[in-house]
Structure formats: structure tokens, C-alpha cells
């Protein structure tokens, strides 16, 4: 029986002879022909030796070795990794002229394919025992494969999840996820109380759920996020110099009408029914028309609305330079510098937190006022 190695060398010898003849006839010239003939002779010699020794040192007497030697082991099956590497290469090349992400993907796929291919090729030739080889491959590759695959799997699940949540409407989200949670609970109950359910069925259901999730995620990602609307706050009113309104603004919607903070406030600023505004400072009761506030110190006061109408409290800090959208100061343009509470309904309270950086002597006069109530005023003194 001619061994593989002998076949290779015999084939090479034949090709060298043919090449020498073809070259000598068609191209001519001594050097090439001599070279090719020498190669043919050398290869013939090697082929002879190989045939004589029957591929390396397997004894011709050892009939069992014919079946057991590594070289005689069944050739491993075809590898899929070259295809993977090819895909990576294509991604890389296409990526260079289209989207940079594709280059990244290409590099990743190429790297993964190369590593896997190397490990596979090495392990398949490690011994003549296929089972042992497979376990060897596992020992090499699993510590890398499991975490990476786990992370990718989790990433896909989480990303799909987030896309679906961002796609669903504000009302639809809770409904959808309550349903899904109930379904999961139900399946859990069935599996727990019916041990006879085949594991195959469970795996099937799980796979369908997973595929559904990913498909939903892809669809939702393509559809885009729902419109996210940032809710305006009273801080925005102050920033935009729009505290002066006594009307309800979006910032007042659902604003809590009573404030829990009863202690640790510097003062209550009370709006009476007759339109008087008074400061009831901690330790200085009696309703004053003036409140002293420390400079550069975060301060809390409570607006107590006893007027019988919806009102807000505004801290009027004079004017400040106007700024454009980028936060750059617009020269020669001043806007009102105000802080305000949300609208407090009849007998409601609202909290106001503020810090004054400039003393009233230079930046003032400062005052608490109530839009819509003339003469309601408490002077704020900042030493």
C-alpha cells in the first residue's frame, strides 16, 4: 500500500520531470532545465527512500501499527473556521470603504476565527485519540469561550430589552412587562409542579422566548425610541426668568402641594388672606417684613399660602447678564434673576431652596414677592 507521504513525493517527482521536459522544449536554456531535472532526481530519490521505509519508522512487520499510528488515524473532518476567517476578512475590507464599525467587527471576527482555528488544528493533531483531542480543545478554549459568549449573550438580551422598553409607550411598558412577568411566573409554576414536563419542552419554550426577545429588540431598535419629554421644573422657570406668572405652568403640574419639611427651615414666608407677606423666622417670630440670609449659604424657606388662591413665591434677586443656549454671556443684555416655588394651592405649602452669592448692599435690593399680589413683599438682607 502506498502511503500518503510516498504519494506526495511520487507526484512531485512526476511534476518535476514534466516541468523539466516542458521547460526544455518550450523555453529552452540549459540552467532551468538542469535545475528542474536535478529537482526531479532529488525528489525521485526521496520518493524511493520513502517507499522503501513505508513512511517513517513503522515497521513493516508491525501490522497493527498500520491502523494505530497517528498518521494512520482518520483524517479530521473539515473545519468551519476558514469560512469564519473569510467573513472577517470581507468585513474588514468592506469596512474600510464603508462604516468604521464594520472594520472593528471584521477584526474581532478575524481574531476569533484565527484563535479558534489554531486551537482546533493543534488539538486535532495532538494524539491519535479523537476523544482525548476534543477534551484538550475544551481545556484550551473554554476559559476564553464561555465568558465571552456569556457576555455577548447577556449584552444581546439586555440591549433587546432596553430597545423594547424605550419603544413601548409610557402606559404600554408597564402593561407589557406585567404580562411577561406573569407569564414567566406561570411557566415557573408549571415546571415546578409538573416534574414530568420534558426538559426538551422547557428548552424549546426558553428558546422561543429568547428568539422573540431578540427579534422584538431588533424590530424596536429599527422603529426608534418613543418621544422622551423632559418635565419642566420650577428651577427652569427661574433660569428662564419666567417666575412672574401667577398662572399654572407645566412645572406646576402634579407639584406636591404640601411639603413635609417642618423643621430645620430658616423661616416660613406666609401670605395672608389680606395680601400681606411676612417672614416668620426661627427664633424671631412675630411676622417681619425682612429676612436676613447668610451669604453663599444654601438656605431653605417654606412658602405658606394662606391666601385662598393658588400662588407661588418668587425670590427676586434683581437682574443678571443674559446667556445664550451655549451658556455664553450676551453683552449688554440683562434678564431678571429669580428663584421660585411651584404654585401652592389654597392652604398649600411649597419649599424654596436658594443660595445668594452677592451681598444685598452691592447686588440688592432683594425681596420675596408673590406674582399677582401687589404689595406682598419681604425684603431679603444678605450681609
Amino acid at each position, binding site marked *: 500500500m502506498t502511503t500518503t507521504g510516498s504519494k506526495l513525493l511520487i507526484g512531485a517527482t512526476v511534476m518535476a520531470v514534466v516541468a523539466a521536459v516542458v521547460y526544455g522544449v518550450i523555453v529552452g536554456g540549459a540552467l532551468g532545465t538542469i535545475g528542474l531535472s536535478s529537482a526531479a532526481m532529488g525528489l525521485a530519490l526521496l520518493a524511493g527512500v520513502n517507499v522503501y521505509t513505508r513512511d517513517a519508522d513503522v515497521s513493516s512487520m508491525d501490522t497493527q501499527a498500520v491502523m494505530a499510528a497517528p498518521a494512520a488515524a482518520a483524517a479530521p473532518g473539515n473545519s468551519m473556521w476558514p469560512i469564519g476567517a473569510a467573513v472577517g476578512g470581507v468585513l474588514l475590507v468592506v469596512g474600510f470603504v464603508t462604516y468604521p464599525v464594520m472594520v472593528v467587527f471584521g477584526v474581532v471576527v478575524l481574531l476569533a476565527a484565527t484563535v479558534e482555528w489554531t486551537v482546533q488544528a493543534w488539538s486535532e493533531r495532538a494524539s491519535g485519540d479523537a476523544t482525548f483531542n476534543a477534551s484538550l480543545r475544551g481545556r484550551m478554549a473554554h476559559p476564553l469561550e464561555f465568558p465571552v459568549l456569556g457576555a455577548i449573550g447577556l449584552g444581546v438580551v439586555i440591549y433587546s430589552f432596553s430597545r423594547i422598553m424605550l419603544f413601548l409607550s409610557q402606559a404600554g411598558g408597564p402593561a407589557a412587562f406585567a404580562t411577561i412577568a406573569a407569564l414567566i411566573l406561570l411557566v415557573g409554576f408549571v415546571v415546578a409542579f409538573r416534574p414530568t414536563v420534558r426538559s426538551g419542552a422547557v428548552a424549546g419554550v426558553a428558546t422561543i422566548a429568547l428568539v422573540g426577545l431578540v427579534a422584538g429588540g431588533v424590530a424596536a431598535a429599527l422603529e426608534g425610541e418613543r418621544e422622551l419629554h423632559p418635565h419642566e421644573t420650577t428651577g427652569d422657570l427661574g433660569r428662564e426668568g419666567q417666575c412672574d406668572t401667577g398662572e399654572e405652568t407645566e412645572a406646576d403640574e402634579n407639584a406636591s402641594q404640601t411639603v413635609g419639611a417642618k423643621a*430645620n*427651615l*430658616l423661616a416660613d414666608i406666609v401670605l395672608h388672606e389680606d395680601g400681606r407677606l411676612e417672614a416668620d*423666622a*426661627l*427664633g*424671631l417670630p412675630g411676622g417681619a417684613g*425682612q429676612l*436676613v440670609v*447668610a*451669604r*453663599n*449659604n*444654601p438656605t*431653605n424657606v417654606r412658602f405658606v399660602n394662606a391666601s385662598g388662591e393658588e400662588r407661588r413665591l418668587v425670590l427676586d434677586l434683581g437682574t443678571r447678564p443674559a446667556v445664550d443656549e451655549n451658556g455664553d454671556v450676551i453683552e449688554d443684555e440683562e434678564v431678571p434673576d429669580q428663584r421660585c416655588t411651584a404654585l401652592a394651592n389654597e392652604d398649600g405649602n411649597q419649599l424654596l*431652596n436658594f443660595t445668594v*452669592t*452677592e*451681598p444685598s*448692599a*452691592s447686588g440688592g435690593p432683594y425681596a420675596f414677592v408673590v406674582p399677582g399680589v401687589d404689595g406682598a413683599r419681604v425684603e431679603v*438682607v444678605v*450681609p
Partner: protein
Amino acid sequence: MVREMSAGPSRRRLAGALTALGGVTLLAACAEDAPQDTWQPAGENAQRIQDLQWWVFAIAGAVGLIVFATIAWVSVRYRDRGQPIPRQTHGRPALEIGLTVLPALILVGVAIPTIGTLMDLSRTSDTECVVNVTGQQWWWEVDYPPQEGCGGFSEPIVTSGQMVIPTGTKVLVRGTSRDVIHSWWIPRLNGKRDMVPGRVQTVRLQADRPGIYAGQCTEFCGLSHANMRMEVVALDPADFETWKANQLADYTAPMEGSLAAAGEQVFISQCATCHQVDGLVNADGVPIIAQPQERVFAGAAPNLTNLTTRNTFAGATWDLLTPTCRDDVWNASPEEFGAAYLAGVSADCLNEVDLREWLRNAPAKKPMYADPEQLGPTDGLNRGMPYLALSEAQIDQIIAYLLERQ
């Protein structure tokens, strides 16, 4: 062998050491010069605490003695002398219930007057005037809002380190903080109270007699927590009026051509960005308003308008008075104390050593995060006063200027 031989002398040495330790502890309890002693109340609030604590400590001490004596007796009486293990018993309901009920009763007995005292000490309805304190790393600002109490204030007064109050008056301290949590404690006048950013906390203070009552920050607040001290200075109501008038007096510019006049210029260029001096104007006659928030993390630096009417500085940690002059104030009789304190800091009495060191390099004297290279976390803002690279001549001028701030 070796152990047996040395057992005698080493045991004796241990006993000696324990006796000495006990003796020292006992003696420490009788310290005379202890300005921060809760056991020497100097006003009604501290007296309330004293009235509560002496018998609570007495009960606790008696219980402690009984427990330790029992343990000692049991360990000696039933020590291992090779006797057989006695019969083991289990459960003695009467004793167990008794030993649970007795401590519970003691605790209830302690709790009732304790809660009563706490409620009394947190009352704000009967106080006669208000003083604000604001903690920041590492000093206290004190300010007086306009009010009718304490003889009346027409304008706010801002000072630091020392809080001046009239004697025999129920003062309500409203406290807060500009950066981290600090704690205000004048042991001879009342208990301690944490001062928390964004919250206003209250402490009652009342001093029976004129004098200085020392305290210190008791909530760890960073590098110089140990150097964050404060003093309450009690003056009788007439002296308090004099103090108030001094604080509100108009700014007096230094005489032209004097050392102090040069100091004013240095102050304007080097110090006035952080430190407010009320009445100080620039060359065009426009009042100079300090902008400490641009350079200091807490957004504040001590108001120096009347620096030399106080007798400590930098968180009441160093004296502005020389040791002799300081003793004259601290040891003055209650009748003479007011005049001694109101004399302020004269040129002869000025503690130049510490003040010079402060002006030469403040962070070297009081640890503060003021190294320009380490101000990343605060966006370049200092905690405390930075090194200013003043020359000795400039320091001379500034000291002359500061001496006139009274």
C-alpha cells in the same frame, strides 16, 4: 521555674501601675484649669444637664461597682482548686425575671427625666434673641440678624471665632454649615449640636457671669478638625452694648503716609478678594465687596472689619494676645472682665509671633488643603487660606493695618 520566680514582682508591678493609673484619673477629675468641663456648668442650660447627669452617673457607677465586685468575688471564691465539677442546674425563673425587670426599671427611671431635659433644651419659644453660627472648614462664622432682642440690632453684624452674648439672656443659636457636618459645643453652657449643610439647628445658650467659655468642633470635619475651636464671650448687658457699638462703628481709614496706609493697599490687592472689611473703598470710592466664593470652597472667609476686637484667630486656635495679656483677660474678675475684653488687641499686647507665621504661610501653620497642585477635586478652590508669598515688609504693613481694625 522562671515563671514562678518572676510572678511575685511582676504582679506587684502591675498592681503599682494600676494604682498609679487610677490615681492619675482621679486627679484629672479635679483639674482646676479646665475651660471645657461639663461638670462646671456656667448657665441654666448646662445646669439642667448637670442636674441630670450627676445622679445618672451615680446610678451607673453603683451598678458598675456591684457588677465588678460580684465578678471579682465569684472568680476568687469559685476558682479552680482541683475540686470536682459541681452538679449542673438549669433555669432559675425568679432570678432571671428579676434581673431583667430591675435594669428595665432603672432605665425607665433614667429615661423619664432625660426626655424631659431634652425637651426643655430644645425649646425655642422662650428665647430672647438670635445669633447665627455657620461652620466651615475650619472656623465658625457668627452673625447677628437685625432684631429687637439682646438690646436690639439695627444692622447685621458679622464676625468669626468668638460669639459675644449678653449675660443672663436666653440666646437662641441658629446653626448650619457651608460645607460638611460640623458640631457646635460649648461644654460649660450646653450640650453639643451637629451643624448640617442646608439645615438650621438650634442650641440655647445662657451664661450667668461674664467670661470666656471655650469649645471646639466635635464632628470630624477634615484635616484641621482639631484646629476648629470657638469661644463664647459673655459680657454684661451694658458692656454688650459697647461691643455692639464698636462693631457697627464706621470704617476709619489709616492716616495717610502711615505704615497702616501701605498695609491697606496690600490688603486691597492681596486679601480683599476673600476677606470683607466693611467700609473699605477702592481708589474710585466704590465699596470693595469680597468674592470668597471664587477662591474658597466653602464660599466664605472671616470678616476682618473688627479683627482686633477679638482675641483669637483662625478658628480660635491661636491667640491674638501675648500670654501675659491673655491671662489678664481670662483671669479678670467678673466685674473687670468686660473692660479687659473690650480693650481689644493693643500694639503692646499683640501676639506677633503667631500672626506673622499665619501671614507668612497659613497652610504651614494650620493644615489646610491649600496646595495649588491638589485642588482638582474642588475645581481649584481652596479649603482654608492659601500661601500668598508676602514679603516681610508687606507683613509689617498688614499687621499695622490690622491693629487698627477695632
